[in-house]
């Protein structure tokens, strides 16, 4: 649905590119920061999914060309995110967006990270309009990870009583 809205707003319509186009389309260039995150990715990795202190957010779909898995490790008592890691299947901008997301959530409270907006990520990476959906997915990933952690906690709580 978002894809459709984006297409309409950019008036891309049915004009699909023909034979596979070259890596650098004339109007786009990679911002330094995107290239940097690609060459030196921060926080690539995996936590144990079953760990009760870990929240896992898995968003996107292979058919869309973008899948992000963002994990947070939360300190039970303070509610602070002590560590984060990610894995992404997607273009350079998607990789950079999720990498930035893991950097920004570290050391913050869970409620705080929910306010991270995709526009901030996009601005930080100077994403062109066609790549805005990458930053949106990163924002979704953060929210999904937090939600997952809270669900886990909710499930665990009744057992203790």
């Amino acid at each position, binding site marked *: *649905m*978002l*894809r459709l809205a*984006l*297409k309409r707003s950019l008036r*891309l319509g049915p*004009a*699909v*590119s*023909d*034979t*596979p*186009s*070259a*890596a*650098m*389309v004339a109007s*786009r*260039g*990679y*911002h*330094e920061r*995107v*290239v940097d995150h*690609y060459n030196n*990715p921060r926080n*690539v990795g*995996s936590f144990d999914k079953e760990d009760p202190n870990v929240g896992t957010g*898995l*968003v*996107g*779909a*292979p*058919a*869309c*060309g*973008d*899948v*992000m*898995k963002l994990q947070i490790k939360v300190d039970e008592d303070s509610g602070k995110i002590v560590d984060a890691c990610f*894995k*992404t*299947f*997607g*273009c*350079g*901008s*998607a*990789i950079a967006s999720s990498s930035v997301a893991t950097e920004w959530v570290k050391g913050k409270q869970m409620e705080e990270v929910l306010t991270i907006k995709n526009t901030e990520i996009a601005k930080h990476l100077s994403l062109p309009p*066609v790549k805005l*959906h990458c930053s*949106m*997915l990163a924002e*979704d990933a953060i929210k*999904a990870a937090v939600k997952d952690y809270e669900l886990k906690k909710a499930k665990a709580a009744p057992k203790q009583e």
Partner: protein
Amino acid sequence: MARNLIRRLPILYQNHHHRLFSSATAAVAPSPSPSPSPTDEEIVEMKGVKVSGRPLYMDMQATTPVDPRVLDAMLPFYLSRFGNPHSRTHLYGWESEAAVETARAQVASLIGANPKEIFFTSGATECNNISVKGVMRFYRDKKRHVITTQTEHKCVLDSCRHLQQEGFEPLEEIGRICREKGVPFHTDGAQALGKIPIDVEKMGIALMSLSGHKIYGPKGVGALYLRRRPRVRVEPQMSGGGQERGIRSGTVPTPLVVGMGAACEIAAKEMEYDTRRVTSLQERLLNGIRSRLDEVVVNGSMEHRYPGNLNLSFAYVEGESLLMGLKEVAVSSGSACTSASLEPSYVLRALGVDEDMAHTSIRFGIGRFTTEAEIDRAIELTVQQVEKLRNMSPLYEMAKAGIDLKSIQWAQH
């Protein structure tokens, strides 16, 4: 004065010649060439990406370098024999016309046609426009069907779309029986010319689009083959002085046309040798990659394909991110991120590639000037980048853990 110019030409050419070859191998050979030109060694930064030395060129389907022998043939027509081929009253015109006619014969010979059936244009796109719109508009009162395929170049599909607006109906099959049924059969030979043997008689072709820059000739020139027996008529798309027998008005660009003719002649002579060489390089590339990476899929059929084109999908790795890492190899991708829309290449989809795999494809183009060293370097770089991206891929992680990716409910937008 002309003689002086001509004497100076070999020197001009030599410098160019040297740079032409050294730039292709700069990324491969670490030792500097005898007289290094600045672009070969310094770091180039464009579009936010830094590359040291020029990338290896492996995108032959997009375009090819001009063969030095072709350039040899063209230069005199820019510098000394620069007449307009339609000038009837002096030597400059006569010699230019003679050169155009020689080139016409060279192109015709490569496809088994009569020179009277070849018309020069600005490229295959223009040819496709003339063929599709020209034929249909000429016959608009009698026939209104066009049959096309899903894998055609955008200009063909666009031309068909235009005709749809004029009231023509599209059908989707491919017809080899066209000739028997009296249906003109047009084919876009841009990629095939000079690489696979083409005989317009044997193949029952009525119209064919040809492109100069895909066969080591110059850019900006193409040729349209238009059958005479039985005669295929088209409505001209360019109005003007009636050049090229009224089919395509506009001064015929002699140097470009001479270049295309020379390229065709060279292709006719070297097609067999080139094919053998390119096939062995393709095998080397595929085996080299497959021996170090698993889950590599070749898109399209291995048997019915031109050997210089290798379109590979690397499962769990997205195409654009791979291209970002392969900046020392010039290749292209069939993934959505590199096109203006979010849809994967329609050509790949038509070839039956799964949607999620279509995002992972890379197209390697091998050609006459590709060397073994370049292939080896391409293998090395590709394997490195794919491994790095697979480590970063959640899909690879899940697949290795034995999860069936098709069974997952993805949280799509």
